[in-house]
């Protein structure tokens, strides 16, 4: 019982994602012009991006908590969240590129939304480089935490604000958040899209927890060795 209480969100994530795969790929979907059946990729591509934004937001919150009390645990939590966010970001980019190839004929094009997403990812890769370039642990944690807050704001500007300043984009979402506006999605797609977003977020949170625990073990082992 204790195990179920502790792991409920992991089971839920798996059930939701299994439902998304089965019903999302085999269930009914409206046939839109140009994109046709590839609209089903929405459950994967957008879901992965939502989970990435959620986990990167968590990283920013952990960084703020670190800066409030300088407890290194929060910095390590922030690092684990960024690592997880990057994985989901890369998966989001890959599913987006596959979708672009099917609908626009190319994997990548000079589009403000696409370039903004790539720049946002680069901002977080710079976070990893920053951590690797500073030796002293306390200084590294302080610098990384400040940068993590800055990186999230930068990421938000790159994917939400700058693309909307552009006059035109192939990618939907210049006027508002795609798939979230009334009328953007057919009702039968909403029945899969919302569980998909929840499922991907729960999976990201699960993976984040594992990454953090692996990092904690490494940290404690290193600490033990240094104390010997």
């Amino acid at each position, binding site marked *: 019982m204790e195990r179920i209480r502790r792991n409920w969100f*992991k089971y839920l994530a*798996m059930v939701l*994602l*299994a439902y998304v*795969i*089965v019903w999302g*790929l*085999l*269930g*009914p*979907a409206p046939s839109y012009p140009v994109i046709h*059946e590839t609209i089903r990729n929405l459950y994967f591509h957008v879901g992965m991006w939502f989970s990435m934004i959620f986990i990167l937001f968590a990283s920013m919150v952990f960084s703020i908590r670190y800066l409030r009390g300088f407890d290194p645990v929060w910095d390590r939590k922030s690092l684990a969240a960024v690592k997880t966010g990057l994985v989901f970001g890369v998966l989001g980019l890959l599913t987006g590129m596959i979708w672009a190839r099917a609908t626009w004929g190319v994997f990548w094009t000079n589009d403000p939304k696409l370039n903004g997403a790539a720049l946002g990812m680069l901002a977080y890769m710079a976070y990893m480089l920053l951590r690797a370039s500073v030796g002293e642990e306390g200084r590294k944690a302080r610098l990384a935490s400040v940068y993590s807050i800055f990186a999230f704001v930068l990421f938000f500007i790159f994917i939400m604000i700058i693309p909307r300043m552009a006059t035109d984009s192939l990618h939907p979402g210049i006027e508002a958040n795609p798939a979230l506006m009334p009328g953007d999605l057919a009702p039968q797609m909403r029945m899969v899209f919302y569980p998909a977003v929840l499922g991907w977020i729960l999976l990201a949170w*699960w*993976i984040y927890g*594992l990454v953090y*625990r*692996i990092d*904690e*073990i*490494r940290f*404690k*082992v290193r600490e*033990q*060795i240094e104390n*010997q």
Partner: protein
Amino acid sequence: MWEFSGKILVVAIALLVIFAGLAVWLFYLERRLSGTEKKLEECIKKGGRSSPSQT
């Protein structure tokens, strides 16, 4: 209600197998981590040496 051809069915089955594999691997990793955390805590309590190879 169900609208699919043979190809998409293969894709769905392949994705399901991948996700089932991922779920099994994540739960397995979780169990391994719990064991390692327990061992590490015992090591720390005893004040003994623990090395990455032991974990």
